[in-house]
């Protein structure tokens, strides 16, 4: 009996505890809906346009604000995503279920979010009837199209260029090279002064490719437009191209001590740090990295950006330029007309110029008089105007194995365990 009354007492205590627990759960569920900003709900009577992309809010929000101001009754809900396997899978799941945003980010090529893949799966709409598609500059139009149909608004274009710490260059009495011979001499002179010519952050696989792409642009892709498209169809091959020469020149740079020690395991941040503290005079880098690099420079440090030469004739030089993420209207968009209106708004010269300026390190893929190139992009802008820009070669390649093989073997080239010929053979084998 005593035990039973104890149980009853215990039960009453439990009831009280469960009551408190239920209250906590109820509160928690009431809290459901803690808005984290960005994508806000539309008020009744308003049209809600949803966008999911990886543009920094600082670059994109001014455009969204301006669009909302110009279109009363339209609310834009922007979700900032990071590019990656999880994001790709999440977006593709949402596309399959018909719940993806009205506008999603898309990439050139055949990756999971590539325009080729997305259009083949019927996930994105044909935008060819939009006026801005007629003004997209070549070679970028081909990258946002499948056949003659345009499927993506091109984000912007960023270069691969050599970024130099001019203050340090002056200190050691050297100048940034303009020809291939000057480049090799620059490396040996820098070594003589106790510094490295270039830092390289090859722990990040994208950075592994940058110097090679810069050399290939001048030696192969610039003089042979259509070469990379031909790889997919079999019209062209890596073996019968200047790829071996480009990789041999990269090997010459490695042997000449152009790169700071430990490049293969160095992160881009550490590599930037070497340029900032003057241990390295420059770095071959992407436009997107310029801002981070400039931030690491001590106050008052001067810098300059130039194309990386690959021949002894400066007029031969081409610069590689890559399209950043683009924007596509989804096939099951709830507001396709508003979505297209948004892209048309973004394509207006002054809006596109604002976007490209805020994005930092890029220039518009639709020529815009309103865009004033910052000092870091002046040279690249001149190359664009002169038609001396090539797209990154891998965007045309038929699979991801080729670039993976190139990345892996370039690391091996730095370590001295492979040769340019073997790298080209690896790329050829990966194509099959």
């Amino acid at each position, binding site marked *: 009996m005593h*035990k*039973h009354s104890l*149980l009853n007492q*215990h*039960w009453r205590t*439990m009831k009280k505890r469960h009551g408190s*627990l239920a209250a*906590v*759960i109820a509160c*928690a*569920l009431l*809290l*459901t*809906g*803690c*808005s*984290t*900003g*960005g*994508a*806000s*709900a539309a008020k009744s009577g308003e049209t809600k346009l*949803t966008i*999911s992309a*990886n543009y*920094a*809010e600082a670059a994109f929000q001014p455009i969204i604000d301006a669009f909302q101001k110009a279109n009363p009754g339209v609310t834009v*809900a922007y*979700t*900032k*995503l*990071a*590019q*990656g396997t*999880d*994001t790709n*899978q*999440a977006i593709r*799941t*949402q596309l399959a*279920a018909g*719940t993806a*945003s009205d506008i999603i980010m898309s990439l050139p090529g055949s990756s999971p979010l590539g325009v080729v893949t997305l259009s083949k799966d019927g996930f994105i709409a044909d935008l060819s009837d939009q006026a801005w598609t007629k003004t997209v500059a070549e070679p970028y139009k081909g990258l946002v199209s499948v056949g003659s149909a345009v499927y993506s608004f091109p984000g912007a274009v960023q270069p691969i260029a050599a970024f130099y710490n001019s203050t340090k260059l002056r200190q050691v009495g050297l100048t940034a090279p303009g020809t291939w011979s000057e480049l090799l001499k620059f490396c040996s002179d820098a070594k003589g002064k106790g510094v490295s010519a270039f830092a390289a952050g090859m722990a990040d696989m*994208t950075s592994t490719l940058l110097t090679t792409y810069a050399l290939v642009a001048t030696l192969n892709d610039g003089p042979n437009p259509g070469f990379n498209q031909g790889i997919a169809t079999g019209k062209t091959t890596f073996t019968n191209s200047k790829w071996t020469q480009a990789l041999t020149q990269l090997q010459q740079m490695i042997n000449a001590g152009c790169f700071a020690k430990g490049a293969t395991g160095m992160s*881009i*941040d*550490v590599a930037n*740090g070497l340029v*900032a*503290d003057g241990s390295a005079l420059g770095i071959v880098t*992407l436009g*997107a*990295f310029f*801002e981070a690099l400039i*931030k*690491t*420079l*001590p106050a008052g440090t001067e810098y300059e950006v130039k194309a990386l030469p690959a021949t002894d004739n400066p007029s031969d030089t081409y610069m590689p330029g890559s399209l*950043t*993420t683009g924007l596509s209207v989804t096939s099951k968009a709830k507001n396709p007309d508003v979505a297209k209106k948004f892209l048309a708004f973004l394509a207006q010269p002054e809006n596109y110029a604002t976007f490209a300026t805020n994005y930092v390190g890029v220039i518009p893929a639709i020529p815009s008089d309103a865009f004033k190139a910052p000092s870091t992009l002046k040279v690249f802008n001149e190359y664009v105007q002169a038609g001396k820009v090539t797209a990154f070669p891998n965007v045309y390649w038929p699979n991801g194995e080729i670039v993976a093989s190139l990345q892996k073997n370039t690391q091996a080239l730095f370590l001295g365990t492979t040769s340019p010929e073997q790298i080209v053979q690896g790329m050829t084998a990966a194509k099959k």
Partner: protein
Amino acid sequence: MTRYTVRTLLLEIALIVAAAVFISPMVVALNIALRPSGQAGSPLALTTSPSLENVVAAFTEGHLGAALLNSVVVTVGGTLIAITFSSWAAYYLVRRSGHLPRGLFMLFLAGLLLPIQLVTLPLYNTLHSLGLIGNLGGLLVHYAGSTMPFSVFLYASFLRSVATDYEEAAHIDGCGPASAFVHVVFPLLRPVTGTVLILNALAIYNDFFNPLLYLTGSGQQTAPVALQSFIGEYVANWPVIFAGVLVTVVPILALYFILQKHIIKGFAGGLKG
């Protein structure tokens, strides 16, 4: 009393070195998190003028406050659901004999073998049809289902080692099966409950993919998704990410310290079959 010998000294030195190795990533993260923007240098160089500007940026630009609250809600809700349902389910499956409980147990075990990628789209479609996309309720339903197989497995394994004497005594005292479970069996399951709690809480709190999938476009996000907004197309804002990570670690670390005793007991005894 143990004598302090050379061996003790060597052991102490070894433990201090091991602790330093384990703590070094946290020190580097803290060092970078406190580094003001514009201060150049290697990640290992000591930050000379520490600042909280990166923490402020994580809260203002990454909306980390609301994201943390959402993370706590789904973690608490998901874990409570997992504990409640899986302990009841395991009690039934272990204590009842017959084909049905055995078959159901096998079904739960099959859930452990099923690759989550296989069910992502059908599950997403179902929750969409139920109107549960874009709110934390959908996530809770997802976690309720996804945490059940492993939790049921743990509870069932532990329950098999618990003698039925106490339950029988409770039955003699007039308790039904439910009452006996609440008053007698569940308190005996405290060690394994600690294990289930911490494993599920960690998995839910750290989950990135499902909140990204179910909450994208809703204006809500959890802490891991909020932190990824600082990863750009090519450049990541590491100081703000590290500052956010250090803040994000606090709730789960607090939970660990509060439940430390139970968790250690749980890991020590909770997996005994």
